[in-house]
């Protein structure tokens, strides 16, 4: 299968700092790839390179077979959607209007306006914001705005979704719901690349993950391969113990006190 997203040894330098250092990754259609790592590891920079916001200093990025930094914005809007962690707080539009803005790239393609409305409606239902449809964005909580943002990028109907911490402001119930939505999108064939801070959320709901540290890929693979006691303790500079999840077939990451030490 041709990968939906393919990055080969991409680097990004700003001034003298190397923010991303020779990272390679691949995501197939239908796959959820988790991007994890400590603050400042280069996760967002990597995602923005894939989104076409930044051109890599070295290496090769491909999204649906094209170089995102050299593809016209209108065309790119059909290939990938991007969700940043923080919305614009002073947005005066309603939730429905905001989600409808995700349809912008398709405004000329479909003649029947009912088609757009139906997609917007279903995106709002999927992310559980349909009851907020007529509310003004600036009146919503940060978490609600984040769910609306997800509805907007779903409504954009792209084969690749790039999500930067889509669950950062959500309670654990909504975190699980969002991950289930991502799974259902993946089942429909979407390639989902998602930055997550919560390693357990990533372990439970992604197919594969990449652990970044100081711009480098510290590990790539299945959660059980990437999330190991020694590696996480070193990368996060915090004693960590990884145990089997009691109910799910994935590891469970626990922070522990320095005195206890890893077993």
């Amino acid at each position: 299968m041709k990968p939906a997203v393919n990055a080969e040894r991409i680097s990004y330098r700003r001034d003298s700092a190397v923010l991303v250092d020779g990272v390679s990754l691949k995501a197939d259609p239908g796959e959820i790839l988790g991007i994890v790592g400590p603050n400042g590891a280069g996760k967002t920079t990597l995602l923005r390179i894939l989104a076409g916001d930044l051109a890599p200093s070295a290496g090769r990025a491909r999204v649906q077979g094209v170089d995102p930094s050299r593809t016209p914005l209108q065309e790119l809007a059909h290939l990938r959607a991007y969700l940043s962690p923080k919305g614009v707080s002073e947005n005066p539009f309603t939730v429905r209007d905001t989600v409808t803005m995700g349809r912008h790239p398709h405004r000329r393609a479909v003649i029947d306006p009912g088609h757009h409305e139906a997609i917007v409606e279903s995106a709002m239902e999927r992310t559980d914001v349909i009851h907020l449809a007529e509310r003004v964005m600036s009146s919503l909580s940060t978490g609600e705005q984040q769910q609306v943002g997800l509805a907007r990028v779903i409504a954009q109907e792209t084969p690749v979704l790039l999500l930067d911490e889509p669950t950062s402001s959500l309670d654990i119930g909504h975190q699980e719901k969002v991950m289930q939505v991502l799974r259902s999108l993946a089942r429909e064939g979407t390639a989902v690349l998602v930055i997550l801070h919560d390693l357990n959320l990533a372990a439970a709901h992604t197919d594969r993950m990449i652990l970044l540290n100081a711009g480098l890929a510290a590990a790539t693979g299945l959660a059980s391969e990437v999330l190991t006691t020694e590696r996480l303790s070193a990368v996060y500079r915090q004693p960590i113990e990884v145990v089997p999840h009691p109910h799910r077939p994935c590891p469970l990451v626990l922070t522990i006190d320095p005195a206890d030490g890893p077993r």
Partner: protein
Amino acid sequence: MTQSATATDRESGRLAAVLVLGTGLLGLMVVGLLSGAVAINPADLFHMLGRRLGLTDDPQRLTDSVLWAIRLPRVLAGAVAGAGLGVAGAALQGTFRNHIADPHLVGISPAAGLGAVAGIALTPAGGPPLVMMLGAAAAGGGAALLMRRIAKRVIESNQFILVGLALGLAMLAWLGAIVLAWDSPRVPTFTFWVFGGLSGSTWSALAAGTPLVLIGTAVVATSSRSLDLLSLGESEARHVGVNVDRVITMILIGVGLAVGGAVGLGGAIGFVGLIVPLIVRKWIGPVHVWLIPASALGGAAMVVAVDILARTVAAPIEVPVGLFTAILGGPVFVWFLMRVGRSRL
């Protein structure tokens, strides 16, 4: 479908608002024609119109020339200047996602004033006012593009306004120095550049200023949809396919033209670009396809109304229009700043 029904309701509500604003503007313009140092009765208005349109051969009445040479250009200049300021305010607020942006507050009107004076210097005595207007538009557009560069570095919205205010005050000081030093009857007084004024309105000024405001409005209006999308944030707008840098450059050139025409016609009338889009947005919502034309009508109505006050309150002495807009606008601005402080908008 239910959402289609509410969407249709919203559209007809917006159309009704535009019609109300348009009718109000026309009514105010008629009042503006009739009121002033010389009171004119409505019958004279019809008489003048009939004569101008060649419908009647009645001899010219004394009020005819007052209406034709003084009142009508003045009322039209107020309407055009107000429209330009309303459109510029709505466009700036959308572009910078800052609901307290206004051509006056972010230094665009003072820059336009400097450009206008430079234009006057380049025009031979008795020449047409077009160069002056173009100078105002070029300087206004330049200031708008400079503010865009500043906005890219300054993230905090109040800081952006403060930078604009500081630049504006500095330019105003230069303008004052030049106007006082030059001391020529060809240059409008310093009051005109600070508080505006419509007393010197002429048909030739209208002929130069109106196309600028119309073109500026058209440029901004064609970017309505992009302005809507910019409310998501610049990178978000880019991600749905908007060429953000190009669109914003276009919009700010449009703002420069609209402000240039407005300042050339009426001087620096403050707060219109702040208050009008604010009220209109509360009334009909943030969709720019409606917000831009409604702000044009609202701005025109506000300046025409305030100009009526300006020449009747202390008649026969005239008060600069901008004094009234500032007296009204100052408190609104403060109220809005306090509200922003509490709820982050």
